[in-house]
């Protein structure tokens, strides 16, 4: 039979065409009769039947005499079936039996030849001792962490150098690109950032009024809102939102450009990816984050005002008057000074992680996650350092 063997759909009668093996003594040795479909349609049963074939064959070989694997009853065969039959043959032969495959149709013979058994065991590397592997893992992690730090520092140096170059040759700045990114990073982010800060302003005001009213000092909630929001909350919440929203976008964008060799394309055209891709994004972030922080502060104060009015009975006139007494220009500036540093942290981490993306989609996902997590972590660390710094200089 030379035509392709039609396979039965798996939904057909399950008992019919199951791959089976039976042994039978004959004058010239033991005949191992194979029947049914030896195809992947019957994958599980086929593997079990191949096990039977080896077991029955080994038992028969122990009694002496040759083994004949009879394929005449096989209704269908594919490479997997051929592999299993030839593997059983090879293993029996290895155990010292005389094995022969007989009555294979022409197409089955070709398949058996194609699937000729050979061991793939040697190709797998031998696992070393767990202790050595464990130590090797620790060593590798340490070395790669060290390389990370070196890479990060050299990347920061490159970015600063290209920023300075851009500032000393303003003609090489890309105003169109910067404007486009400012629109994306600041303008389009404004609604969500304003909303979040508004809500947090409301919450701080509610808690301030609620807790302080026990001491009869509900009016001081205004001082609390003003100082907390302007010094810390506005810039912190905005930075975290920007790290999640913009930092991840930058990493994904640069990472997929790296995957598609677009960054190499820029390089061979004589363009510096730092200048074309990184600098505009970084400058846009440096512009966007202070703007967003300012508006976020306003939004949070407005939220505080509404809740203080509705929940605490502090009228807007009193709120604004107390606010003017409570905060000075320095309170406002403390928040705003931090914003460009946060922008730098987020931008550097996002670009660095973007350039680290390797060829796979998995690595893109990993790098984007790393970018967001590291950026948020560093934003909080930097904010803590600023708190200590401003406390030390009593600003």
């Amino acid at each position, binding site marked *: 039979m030379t*035509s*392709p063997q039609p*396979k039965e759909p798996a*939904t057909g009668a399950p008992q019919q065409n199951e791959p089976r093996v039976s042994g039978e003594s004959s004058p010239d040795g033991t005949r191992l009769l194979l029947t049914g479909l030896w195809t992947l349609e019957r994958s599980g049963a086929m*593997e079990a039947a191949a096990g039977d074939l080896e077991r029955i064959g080994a038992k028969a070989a122990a009694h002496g005499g040759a083994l004949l694997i009879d394929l005449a009853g096989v209704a269908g065969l594919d*490479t997997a079936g051929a592999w299993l039959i030839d593997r059983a043959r090879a293993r029996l032969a290895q155990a010292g039996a005389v094995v022969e495959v007989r009555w294979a149709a022409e197409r089955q013979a070709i398949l058996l030849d194609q699937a000729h058994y050979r061991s793939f065991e040697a*190709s797998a590397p031998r696992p070393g001792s767990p202790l050595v592997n464990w130590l090797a893992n620790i060593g590798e992690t340490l070395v790669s962490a060290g390389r990370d730090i070196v890479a990060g520092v050299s990347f920061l140096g490159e970015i600063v150098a290209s920023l300075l170059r851009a500032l000393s040759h303003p003609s090489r700045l890309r105003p169109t690109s910067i404007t486009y990114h400012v629109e994306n990073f600041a303008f389009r982010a404004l609604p969500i950032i304003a909303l979040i800060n508004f809500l947090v302003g409301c919450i701080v005001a509610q808690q301030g009024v609620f807790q302080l009213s026990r001491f009869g000092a509900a009016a001081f909630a205004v001082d609390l809102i003003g100082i907390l929001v302007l010094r810390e909350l506005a810039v912190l919440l905005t930075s975290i939102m920007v790290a999640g929203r913009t930092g991840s976008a930058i990493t994904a964008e640069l990472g997929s450009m790296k995957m598609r060799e677009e960054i190499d394309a820029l390089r061979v055209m004589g363009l510096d990816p730092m200048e074309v891709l990184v600098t505009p994004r970084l400058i846009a972030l440096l512009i966007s984050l202070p703007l967003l922080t300012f508006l976020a502060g306003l939004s949070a104060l407005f939220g505080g005002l509404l809740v203080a009015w509705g929940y605490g009975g502090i009228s807007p006139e009193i709120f604004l008057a107390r606010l003017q007494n409570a905060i000075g220009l320095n309170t406002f500036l403390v928040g705003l000074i931090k914003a460009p540093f946060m922008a730098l942290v987020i931008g550097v981490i996002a670009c660095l992680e973007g350039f680290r993306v390797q060829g*796979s989609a*998995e690595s893109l996902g990993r790098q984007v996650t790393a970018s967001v997590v590291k950026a948020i972590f560093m934003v909080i660390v930097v904010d803590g350092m600023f708190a200590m710094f401003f406390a030390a200089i009593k600003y």
Partner: protein
Amino acid sequence: MSQIPPLPDEPEIAIRVRDVVVGFGQKLVLKGLDLDVRRGEVLGFVGGSGTGKSVLTRAILGLVPKRGGSIEVFGQNLDELRGAGRRSLERRWGVLFQQGALFSGLTVLQNIQLPMREHLQISQSLMNELAMLKLELVGLKRDAADKFPSELSGGMIKRAALARALSLDPEILFLDEPTSGLDPIGAAEFDQLIATLQKTLGLTVYMVTHDLDSLYSICDRIAALADGKIVATGTIEEMLASDHPWLRAYFHGQRARQLALPQA
């Protein structure tokens, strides 16, 4: 499914496409297209860029919805198949995408094993052996097994993707421009590989291609697509004799003439 082997003078049809209409928005790409792919043949599918070759392939595979007509694979209408029936049919075809579409997060070996893991009930060790077998079948070295797709050359990606397409021993193999992006030697080797596999495994091969060499060397029949319809089907000789203007331009153009000379 009949157990009777096809009669020699009446080839069994593996894929029957009738009056298929596919469009995007206002534009109709396929306008009532008919096509038969016979069991056990290598069908080359040609057509200019943007005429809808890939669209037809994707419509057969169910990746693009069609507006009208019917597609039958092994006599089963794809529109009427649901659930288990559909899945068991999908196991009987393998697809080699143009860019390989290997999963970038998995090694070559894991890529080949993925369909086995999802569809079969076999042990891990047998899965390893079968995957290595397919790997060698398509002419890859054993050390390619543990590499990731990003570490492979273009030719190796095509071979690895072919090994994945073959992992469930399909009966129909869809190839989307299998030799594009390969050097002439690599392309010729790939053609040869497909011809060998087609003979040993008894595959039906549906091949979208632009490669005139492949058309001459391994295709049993050629179908040409123009204006949303099949304008001609037949052997390469019949294509060469056709009067259709596009076919004349295609098979008698500058690049085709050099190949046609030894045939004439």
